C-alpha cells in the first residue's frame, strides 16, 4: 500500500503535538514566571528504493539512488528561558529575577524544585512560601510577625525586616535569598505550578548570589510576566492548522488513488 498514507499520518500527529504545545503557551499567557515551549521536528528515516551505483544505461552509472522519506517526528519540546517582562505590583513580597537564575523551594516531603515565579507569601509560622505553601530555600523566617512593619529585599538578595518594637523602629537582617542556575536549563523538567526539577540533562543546580557571577538581580515589588509572545503564538497556531490540513490532503489523495485502483477491474 501507499507509504504516503503513513507518512502523511505522521505529519498529522506531529502537528497535533505542535498544537498542544502552542495552546499550552497561549493558555499561560498571563502566568507569572511561565516560560514558553517550542515543539521541534525532524524528518524520519529514509528508505532506499534504488541503490546508488546502478547502471542506467550502457554508459551511465546512477550517481545516487532513489530515496523516499517516511515522514516526520517530534524531536523535542524545549522551553525557551528568555526574560519575561517585569510588571510592577508594589507588593513587597513579590520578587522578580532580572536575568539568569531560579529560586529554590523545598517540597514538604523532601526534595526540591526551582521556579522563576516570585509571588511569595508569609505562612502562619512566618516562613516565606510560594502560593502553594512550599518554603523558599534557604528558609527565610520572619520572627514575631506582629511587630513587622515591612520587609526590604535588596537586588543582591539581602532581606531586611523592619520592626516596631515598643514604639522603637528596629531593623533585622534575615537569611539571604540565593539563586540557582543550570548548565542546560532546557533540560529541566517542568512539573506544573511554575516549578521545574533538575534532570541528568540539565545538570546539578549551581548556587550563587543574586547580582554576581552572571546571576540576575532581584527586583522587589515586581513580578516576571510570562515570556509568551501572543502574536507569535497566534501565527504558530495558523501554521500548525495549515500544516495539519495539508497533511490530511496527502491522506485524501492516497485514498482517492486507492479508489482508482479498486475500480480498475470492472
Amino acid at each position, binding site marked *: 500500500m*501507499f*507509504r*504516503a498514507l503513513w*507518512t*502523511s499520518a505522521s*505529519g498529522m500527529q506531529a*502537528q497535533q503535538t*505542535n498544537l498542544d504545545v502552542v495552546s499550552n503557551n497561549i493558555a499561560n499567557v498571563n502566568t507569572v514566571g511561565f516560560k514558553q515551549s517550542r515543539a*521541534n*521536528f*525532524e*524528518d*524520519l*528515516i*529514509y528508505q532506499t*528504493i*534504488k541503490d*546508488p551505483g546502478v547502471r*542506467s*544505461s550502457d554508459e551511465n552509472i*546512477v*550517481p*545516487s*539512488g*532513489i*530515496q*523516499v*522519506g517516511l*515522514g*516526520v517526528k517530534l*524531536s523535542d519540546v*524545549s522551553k*525557551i528561558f*528568555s526574560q519575561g517582562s517585569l510588571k510592577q505590583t508594589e507588593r513587597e513580597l513579590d520578587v522578580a529575577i532580572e536575568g539568569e537564575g531560579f529560586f529554590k523551594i523545598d517540597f514538604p516531603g523532601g526534595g526540591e524544585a526551582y521556579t522563576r515565579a516570585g509571588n511569595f507569601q508569609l505562612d502562619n509560622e512566618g516562613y516565606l512560601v510560594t502560593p502553594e505553601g512550599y518554603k523558599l530555600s534557604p528558609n527565610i523566617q520572619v520572627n514575631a510577625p506582629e511587630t513587622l512593619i515591612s520587609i526590604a529585599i535588596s537586588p543582591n538578595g539581602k532581606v531586611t525586616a523592619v520592626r516596631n518594637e515598643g514604639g522603637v523602629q528596629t531593623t533585622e537582617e534575615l537569611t539571604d535569598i540565593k539563586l540557582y*542556575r*543550570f*548548565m*542546560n536549563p*532546557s*533540560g529541566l523538567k517542568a512539573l506544573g505550578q511554575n516549578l521545574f526539577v533538575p534532570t541528568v*540533562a*540539565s*545538570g546539578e543546580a549551581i548556587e550563587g548570589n543574586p547580582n554576581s557571577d*552572571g546571576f540576575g538581580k532581584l527586583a522587589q515589588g515586581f513580578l516576571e510576566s510570562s515570556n509568551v509572545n501572543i502574536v507569535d503564538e497566534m501565527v504558530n497556531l495558523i*501554521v500548525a492548522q*495549515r500544516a495539519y490540513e*495539508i*497533511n490530511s*490532503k*496527502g491522506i485524501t*489523495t*492516497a485514498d*482517492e*488513488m486507492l479508489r*482508482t*485502483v479498486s*475500480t*480498475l*477491474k*470492472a
Partner: protein
Amino acid sequence: MALNLQSIYVLASGSSRAMEQLDTISNNLTNVNTSGFKKLLLKEMSQRIEKNGGDSNHLFVFPRFEDTPVVDIQGSLKISENPLDFAIDGKGFFVIESKGEQYLTRNGHFFIDSEGYLVDSKGNYVLDSADKKIFLDYKKSISVGEDGVIFQEQQEVAKLKIVANNRIEAVGDSYYKGVGDEIEAEYKVLQGYVESSNVNPIKEMTEMIVTQRRFEIYGNLIKSLDTLEQKTNEIGKA
C-alpha cells in the same frame, strides 16, 4: 492472443511511479515545519528505447525514476530569540559527530549538555573547525559572529565547522551526508534564528494533484485496454 499485454504492464509500471511520486511529495509536505529540512526532488528519467526489429515485446518503455537529489536551497529564516539557535544563511552545513561518524545538518537548534559541550537535540556533539567538541562556559554569555566564531565575553572560544558539498544525501533525523565533492562554503551564521524547511507547500500541493491525475489516467487506460480485451473475447461468442 489478439491483444498484447505489454501495454498493460507498461501502464501498471507508470502507476507504481505515480505512487512513488506521492510518497516523496507527502514526505516533503509532512516536513513543512521541520527546521533545516531540505526537500527531495524526484527526477524522472528520459526514456531509452532499445532497437527492436518490429518486436513490440522488446520495447522497453517502462517509465523510471532516475534520482532523488536533495534540493539544497535556502529555507526562510525565523527569529527564535534562543541564544543557542543558529541558522546558516548561504551554502554550508553544521557538522555533528554521532558514534564516531560525522553528519551534516542545517538544523541549528543546539543545547549545552550537562558537561558543558554544545550538542544537538539528540545529544550528539557539534564540531568546531578542528573537528573537536565545543566546550562552553554556561556562566558567560554566548555570541556568534557571522563567520561562525563563538565568543564568550570577548574571548574566542571556537569556530563552528561548516562544510558544503555539491551533492548531499538525506539520512533522516535532520542529518545529511555529503556524497559529492566538497565545495567552498559561503555562509553567514545567524544567532537566535532557525532555518525553516525549504518546502513550498503550494508547489507540492500542485504536484500532488498532477500525481493523482496521472495515476487516474493510467488507471483509465488500463480499464480501456481491459474492455478492449473483453470485446475481443466476445467476438467469438456470436
